[in-house]
């Protein structure tokens, strides 16, 4: 049963939604409109002159094989970041949920990395894997493994995934822990009395009951991997080597703010906007159906 409330006049509901509309306009519609408008122009970096080029910016982009390759890079990166950080978050939450003594201390320590800004997290990991002075690269070398993420694409990818997932684990941990604690103990105990093993209970009771939170985290993590990770990438690899860590949003950033090609950057924003729109629709239309509330 859905609840519906009816208002008699029009001004009260209008007033109530006005703040939300205003915020949407200022922070979403206006900038998106600007991006769409700018994507049709080719300005010079200083903003002294500009030329209308129609869809040329899009043509320019879609004929660039490196741009097309960055779609694939984005898929690999986002999937790896979301899956690894959610799996580890869930694993740690399941462990922390069973703690009897010192739960608060563990929980606080596990949440800590979330307080670190992405760019700073990037620098920390870069420091550890730095070819000159990094501890991790030093020990890897001692084990006979040559670490050089400035040259090897797969290593660079691994490092940016590691650095991007790290802080996210805390975030996911927090939500999963809350979710686990909300599951009534009586259900689990009842199943245990019926002889269900730990894994059976986890698979048939815990996972379905966690599905709303898992779905929420999936959406949030994908959005994070898509949009909030350029700080990490910028500090660690700057998208290299050979653009192997250039995800779509990093290319928007680097073409716009590093290369000052605002036309192309705006066109990429528009493509990204459409893409994320489609992705969100898919998530809500197909995945949400499988969620039990």
């Amino acid at each position, binding site marked *: 049963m859905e609840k519906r409330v009816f208002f008699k006049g029009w001004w009260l509901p209008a007033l109530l939604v006005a703040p939300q509309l205003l915020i949407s306009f200022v922070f979403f519609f206006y900038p998106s409109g600007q991006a769409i408008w700018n994507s049709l122009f080719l300005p010079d970096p200083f903003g002294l002159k500009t030329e209308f080029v129609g869809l040329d910016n899009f043509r320019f982009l879609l004929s660039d094989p490196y741009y097309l390759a960055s779609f694939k890079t984005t898929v690999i990166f986002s999937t790896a970041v979301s899956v690894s950080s959610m799996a580890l978050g869930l694993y740690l939450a399941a462990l922390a949920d069973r703690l009897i003594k010192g739960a608060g201390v563990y929980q606080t320590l596990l949440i800590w990395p979330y307080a670190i800004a992405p760019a700073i997290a990037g620098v920390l990991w870069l420091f550890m894997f730095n070819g000159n002075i990094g501890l991790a690269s030093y020990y890897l070398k001692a084990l006979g493994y040559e670490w050089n993420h400035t040259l090897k694409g797969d290593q660079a990818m691994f490092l940016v995934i590691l650095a991007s997932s790290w802080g996210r684990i805390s975030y996911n941990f927090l939500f999963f822990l809350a979710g686990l604690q909300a599951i009534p103990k009586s259900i689990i105990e009842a199943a245990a009395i019926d002889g269900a093993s730990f894994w059976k209970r986890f698979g048939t009771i815990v996972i379905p009951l966690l599905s709303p939170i898992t779905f929420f985290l999936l959406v949030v993590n994908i959005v994070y991997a898509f949009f909030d990770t350029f700080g990490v990438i910028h500090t660690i690899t700057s998208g290299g080597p050979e653009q192997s860590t250039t995800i779509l949003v990093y290319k928007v950033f680097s073409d716009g703010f590093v290369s*000052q090609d605002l036309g192309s950057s705006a066109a990429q924003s528009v493509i990204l906007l459409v893409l994320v729109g489609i992705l969100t629709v898919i998530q809500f239309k197909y995945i949400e159906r499988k969620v039990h509330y």
Partner: protein
Amino acid sequence: MKTIKAIIASLALFAMFAGTAAQAKVEIQWWHAFGGRLGELLDEQVNKFNASQDKYTVVHTRKGNYSETLNAGIAAFRAGQHPNILMVFEVGTASLMAAKGAYVPMYQLMKDAGQRFNPKGFVSAVSGYYTTTDGKMLSMPYNSSTPVLWVNKDLMKKAGLDPEMDLSTWKKVGNALDAAKAKGIDMPFCTCWHSWVHLENFSAYHNIPFATKSNGFAGLDTELAFNSPVHIKHIQTLGKWAQEGKFKYMGRRNEAGKNFRAGECMLMTESSAGYAGIKKEAKFEFAIRHLPYYGATEAPQNTIIGGSSLWALSGKSKEENKATAAFLAFLSRTDIQAKWHQDTGYLGVTTAAAKATKKSGFYKSNPGTDLAGIQMMRNKVTQNSKGLRLGSFDQIRGIIDEEMEGVYNGTKTAQVALDSAVKRGNVLLRRFERANK
């Protein structure tokens, strides 16, 4: 609580007085890219200027590396919050030149301010970079360097090599690297600024074009040309060395400098301005040599500069422009230039500074510090060795770096990588041409 309030109140009072004192002077902003030892030396220059007169104050701010500084300047210009003076590295020169209206040309600035200024006092190989084809100087050369070969003599000895051996050609360098690898030296060769040293300077040094239309000096419709057989041969050699573990890639900019200063790398190609840091940090005997070349060309042409020049951005008051002019004239003074040249390893950009340095006996007591100057001015410049003037060049360098990474990690041949870099770079040149018609 009371003490905190008292502190805040006194701070506010202090700020007020400090404010009024500063208001009497004209304050101008300078954005630059120098940290570390270079940053200290730059700070010294600014302090000297501020103390030398009581009309103007220069405030300097570091905005990150060269690219970040340029981008910060451009973004600030769009927002109307730009500094009076912006440091722009040589790669950004074409972008600035094309942005007429964004800057006050140097000759104009000096004339308007009634400042005595002699553009002919600058070494032409340097000032030519920043001067229009009809001889008007647009920005002031600040720091200019050229790539040289740095030698760790201690590691040479450890490799069983004569530290004084001839390293003038890449073939001889290759032999030295073979010997070093055989003796277990971990990093026989490293380099900074790959594109600048191994393609841009390489082209000038071998007198072959990097791009058509005199490397872009003669028009925006220039096309890249660094995929000639000579270029390919050199990059393929570097790739081979990388595969054999003789050359270690440390990053696109000057990351390898750390390895050299730490005594890990035996031979390094890097700017002559690596001098400031190496002199300060190296705990081994080092030497400076000319950049190697391929013996096939009879004798090397000249190398070209890297570094930055200072641009006076437009939209500032007359008073502030006067201050800018006074400061830039101060920087070009012989004593300031000579000190900068000797401290940093950058070239003496005025003829007088180079002469004064020679007279002081500096080159004799610091052997090798004059090599960069000689290497740059050894011949009459040709169409191919004047320098580069290419739009979107920071991006093109990024493309070159990417493609070269493919050669070093063995996924691409030099032919494929350079062909691809030329093709991708040309797309950007056409885009730049279109945006700046």
